[in-house]
């Protein structure tokens, strides 16, 4: 062993709120789009962290450790939503736009873009894309028009470091089911953004 002690992080629960509350709150809010839920997630994160603090070995930084606890809580929430969607089966079916809305199913050439729903050029200027407030609003709207299970899958995809294999495991879906959900959700999101954001 070298004389130089490896840097070991220590926990300072007294300073957690001042140091990390805003960061954790933003992290949660950006992923659940609801203030109450975000607040509850942050509270549960701190309480779990307090309970588990004897097991903290100091290998990761305090912040990384807290974020990893919060991430677990968000995944649990997505999983709960996927297993017990507030939507009934019929409702969630209504939210699904059929593949035939996007691609031809009859005729000599199958699976080509339908003229009316094919991607149109997006003339998004730099300024437009920077209008994040507007985008945030429309994004949340478009997400809410997806079946609940799809929006959980879609959201998990963007929770950093979550790989498709893990998402399938977390939500108990097969990998081919995963890609079909991503495909259909993205087609729907693209159309929704084109209608509401690009032309706004």
């Amino acid at each position, binding site marked *: 062993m070298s004389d130089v002690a490896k840097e070991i992080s220590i926990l300072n*629960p*007294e300073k*957690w*709120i001042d140091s990390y*509350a*805003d*960061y954790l*709150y*933003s992290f949660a*809010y*950006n*992923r659940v789009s609801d203030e109450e839920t975000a*607040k509850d997630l*942050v*509270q549960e994160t*701190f*309480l779990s962290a*307090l309970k588990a603090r004897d097991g903290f070995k100091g290998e990761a930084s305090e912040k990384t450790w807290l974020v990893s606890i919060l991430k677990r809580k968000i995944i649990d929430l997505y999983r709960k939503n996927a297993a017990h969607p507030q939507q009934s089966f019929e409702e969630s079916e209504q939210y699904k736009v059929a*593949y035939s809305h*996007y*691609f031809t199913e009859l005729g000599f*050439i*199958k*699976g*080509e*873009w339908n003229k009316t729903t*094919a*991607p*149109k*050029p*997006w003339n*998004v200027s730099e300024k437009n*894309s920077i209008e*994040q407030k507007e*985008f*945030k609003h429309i*994004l949340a709207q478009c997400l809410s028009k997806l079946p609940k299970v799809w929006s959980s899958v879609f959201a998990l*995809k*963007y929770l950093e470091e979550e*790989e*498709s294999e893990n998402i399938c495991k977390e939500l108990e879906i097969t990998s081919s089911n995963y*890609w*079909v959900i*991503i*495909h259909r959700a*993205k*087609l729907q*999101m*693209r159309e929704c*953004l*084109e209608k509401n954001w690009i032309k706004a």
Partner: protein
Amino acid sequence: MTSDEKNIAYFSKSMGWNLCCKQATYLLLKQEEKKLSFKEEYALKFHMSFCKLCKAFKRQSEMMNEAINKNLQQIILMPKIEKDNLKALINSNLYNN
């Protein structure tokens, strides 16, 4: 078409690797996260060499990813009253155990 694209086209056609747009967009999204099989990759390259709509879809999909990721990094301040409540909660947990 560049000569490289011509080769891919010739190769894909001769192997019977023709994709429709539905399959191509599916593979495009898969490719954002995973390495495709050799056959999938070549079939997709061929399709993308001529399909303007799928090219537009690819660009827009990437723009959406970028916008969503940027959106996820926004900092929102937690209301002060919530912070004070949490502080009290942490302190009571710290000193009662």
